């Protein structure tokens, strides 16, 4: 099930859509959640600068957390070097996800950019 957050007008932003497509194509996730957290930060409304992604994929098997994050970073290299400014990654194998791993709550903005 893919969950893509939609903004006020009911549409997922262009960046969120690209992120969804790239992660789906490259990591073949069994579960994927893309959350635009820009609203939690000091950026204009409808920004697509801060995201949290929850990715459940076999691609992460036998990979330590850092390696998993680098894999996701690599897939989203272009976005991270243009508008996306922060990326919170929760990367699980299907086994870990089924056991009920928790997605952490992102910290509050503290004003800087």
């Amino acid at each position, binding site marked *: 099930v893919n969950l893509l957050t939609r903004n006020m007008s009911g549409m997922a932003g262009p960046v969120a859509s690209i992120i969804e497509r790239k992660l789906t194509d490259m990591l073949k996730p069994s579960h994927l959640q893309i959350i635009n957290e820009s609203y939690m930060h000091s950026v204009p409304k409808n920004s697509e600068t801060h995201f949290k992604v929850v990715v459940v994929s076999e691609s992460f098997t036998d990979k330590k957390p850092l390696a998993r994050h680098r894999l996701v970073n690599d897939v989203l290299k272009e976005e991270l070097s243009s508008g996306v400014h922060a990326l919170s990654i929760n990367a699980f194998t299907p086994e870990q996800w089924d056991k009920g791993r928790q997605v952490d709550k992102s910290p509050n903005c503290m004003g*800087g950019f």
Partner: protein
Amino acid sequence: APRDVQKEIGDLVAKNKVVIFMKGVPEAPQCGFSNAVVQILRMHAVTYDAHNVLVDEELRQGIKDFSSWPTIPQVYIEGEFIGGCDILLQMHQTGELIEELQKVGIKSALMDPEDEKK
């Protein structure tokens, strides 16, 4: 002479066992993710060097190139890139951070007295 940021960073991460690159300073973080790193390190009572990328644009880009890591904050332990906020938080929750610190001779304030005997 022109600034060699990569060399500078290489020197910075070698200067102390724990080195972080963050937004703001530990006494006044300017980013929730940077603050999370500061708070975790505070719980473990770790002393560390902190570098504020908000006052140094070349450092801000340079550290991303150096680590091949696109975001701030960034944590180094003994010259090795550990990760950002998510990873540090995960390591903190699993107890792995205590182990990593112990490996480099730092006794975390959260270390179980039983484990000290190991």
